[in-house]
């Protein structure tokens, strides 16, 4: 059975060119980039090239790029650096829909002496920026707001928000793990001080992340050790992954247009066909300000894990914001923050595409989804009650 992978916000396949670029650095080119000999020095040069490629993708200066082990490390480093650099300030602002890497860290800090303000979103997942602005204060050490949401795909107006925050001289961090590579980012044009990105979301391997730190931003390292990364992150570089990430960023810069035309076209087709063929399916999130590859669709009166497992039996990989898949008993904090009605929150499925998806694959999903939902609805007592009440409306 073939695998149709539409779970690219979870992770992506390593691009063949990326794998090829990495391979020598596992075997023949194993020098330590910190060494004095040219065997290591040659590797250092390659790291420099990778740093330039990463910087190029987001419009940064290579010196502003710090390699880390993952998005979570980047987020933790950024937020901790911001509060350590502003010891007199005890207030943090974030949003209700952050990834756990930011959400749980902020909640942890709020139990350790920091005041936390959590900005709500509306039913379309849009940020209440007025609320954010009202809550900025002289005591605010850091504002951390994701660029785009991993579940709904909704993009926040980062350029606008970051300018406002910077006018108040507050450190601004963004978790851009889902945005990088999918939408054009020119960090220089924003007021963002720190930005997190992750390799494995953009066809580089797992285990490599980046923290962008704007020149002049007060910083303190999270991992204290050697002088690597100009003293901003101790530890011997993960050379193959850094080389791979450099290649992936180079490729991503060339793919941004395809993401926003071909991939977006496939996503739109998938969404439109599902909505047309399946009654009582609802898109979660603002459809006008969304990542081009993501759609989150709630199917009323059925449960997400059951949908995913039926899809899995047909080789289709997606994910859900429903409770049962995660081991939690409640729908995801993102869907709850958006106030997605519980008739569809438990049955919400996220499809996230990549440049490797084909139209044939999308057609396969479109063919398979309606019978899956129909079958589960046939089992669902709530659907049966619902259609009995409205015999004319739905068949």
């Amino acid at each position, binding site marked *: 059975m073939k695998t149709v992978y539409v779970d690219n916000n979870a992770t992506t396949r390593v691009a063949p060119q990326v794998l090829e670029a990495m391979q020598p650095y596992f075997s023949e080119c194993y020098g330590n980039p910190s060494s004095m000999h040219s065997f290591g020095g040659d590797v250092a040069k390659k790291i420099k090239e990778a740093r330039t490629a990463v910087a190029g993708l987001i419009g940064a200066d290579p010196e502003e790029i710090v390699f880390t082990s993952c998005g979570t490390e980047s987020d933790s480093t950024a937020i901790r650096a911001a509060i350590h650099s502003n010891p007199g300030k005890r207030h943090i602002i974030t949003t209700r829909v952050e990834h756990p890497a930011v959400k749980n860290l902020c909640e942890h800090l709020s139990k350790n002496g920091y005041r936390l303000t959590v900005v*709500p979103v509306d039913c379309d997942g849009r940020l209440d920026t007025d609320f954010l602005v009202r809550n900025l204060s002289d005591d605010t050490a850091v504002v951390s707001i994701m660029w785009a949401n991993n579940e709904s795909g909704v993009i926040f107006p980062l350029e606008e928000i970051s300018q406002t925050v910077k006018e108040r001289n507050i450190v601004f961090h963004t978790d851009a793990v889902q945005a990088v590579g999918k939408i054009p980012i020119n960090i220089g044009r924003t007021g963002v001080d720190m930005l997190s990105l992750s390799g494995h979301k953009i066809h580089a391997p797992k285990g490599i992340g980046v923290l962008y730190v704007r020149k002049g931003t007060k910083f303190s390292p999270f991992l204290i050790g050697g002088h690597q990364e100009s003293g901003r992150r101790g530890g011997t570089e993960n050379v193959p992954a850094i080389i791979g990430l450099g290649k992936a960023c180079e490729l991503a810069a060339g793919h941004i247009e395809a993401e926003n035309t071909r991939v977006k076209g496939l996503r739109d087709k998938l969404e439109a066909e599902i909505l047309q063929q399946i009654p009582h399916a609802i898109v979660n999130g603002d459809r006008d300000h969304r990542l081009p590859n993501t759609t989150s669709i709630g199917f009323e*009166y059925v*449960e997400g*894990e059951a949908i995913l497992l039926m899809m899995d039996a047909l080789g289709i990989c997606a994910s859900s914001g429903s409770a049962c898949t995660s081991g939690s008993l409640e729908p995801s904090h993102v869907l709850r923050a958006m106030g997605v009605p519980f008739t569809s929150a*438990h049955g919400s499925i996220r499809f996230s595409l990549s440049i490797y998806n084909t139209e044939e694959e999308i057609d396969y999903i479109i063919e398979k989804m309606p019978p899956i939902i129909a079958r589960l609805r046939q089992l*669902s*007592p709530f659907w049966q009650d619902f259609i009995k009440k409205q015999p004319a409306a739905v068949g």
Partner: protein
Amino acid sequence: MWEYTDKVKDHFLNPRNVGEIENPDGLGEVGSLACGDALKLYFKLDENKRISEAKFQTFGCASAIASSSALTEMVKGLTLEEAAKITNEDIATYLGGLPKEKMHCSVMGRDALEHAIADYRGQKIQKSEGRIVCECFGVTDLEIERAIRENNLKTIEDVTAYVKAGGGCGNCHDNIQEIIDSVQGQALPKKPQPARLTNIQKIKLIEETLEREIRPALKKDGGDIELIDVDGNHVLVKLRGTCATCKASQVTLKHYVESKLKELVTPEIVVEEV
């Protein structure tokens, strides 16, 4: 991904006995859409008072569907006395086991069967017999005690896995620990607390109070209020109309809205403007 047995997968992908029975002898309904799973179980008896037909409808995950399907197969041909002896463990065993986090699906099956048998006997199982411990999922102390006793549960995570209690906001974890300690004989039972509202009851009551008492009063002054969210005992609202710009609105919020809700819903209510 959950590690389901082949039998669970089979009963999920090919569920037996799906549907309704018209004029059933017994009907048991448990769970809710808000809680993420629910089961409607029907049975019919033959002339020898044995279950001749059992059918189900389930909203929920794969293991909920598989547990329901298994249950309908297990009860066929049994007398009600025999069926009443089926435990949640029996359902799990029939399926070759369930992941621990999914044991609540087997408990839901057992509960639905009990309700259906009670329905046949003209009895009604009263939820109010117990004291609500977990407000998020409306689980009573009696249900928790029973799960601990029947399955020899030792930790809060065990209890959550079996009856969902404690799987939401987590505010009831201390209470659950007390129940575990008392059932497992490590502590003396505490004296009962007054009955508490489930989350759904609480939200309904807040909505009703806002509609009936608070909004008409605010509207007299050209103001209005909108309920945004209820998070535990925190009621999040937005002020509208003249209230939105009124300098005294914070006073209104605390001294009128909050005290009304404290009086009519529960004294722990805190009102916040978002």
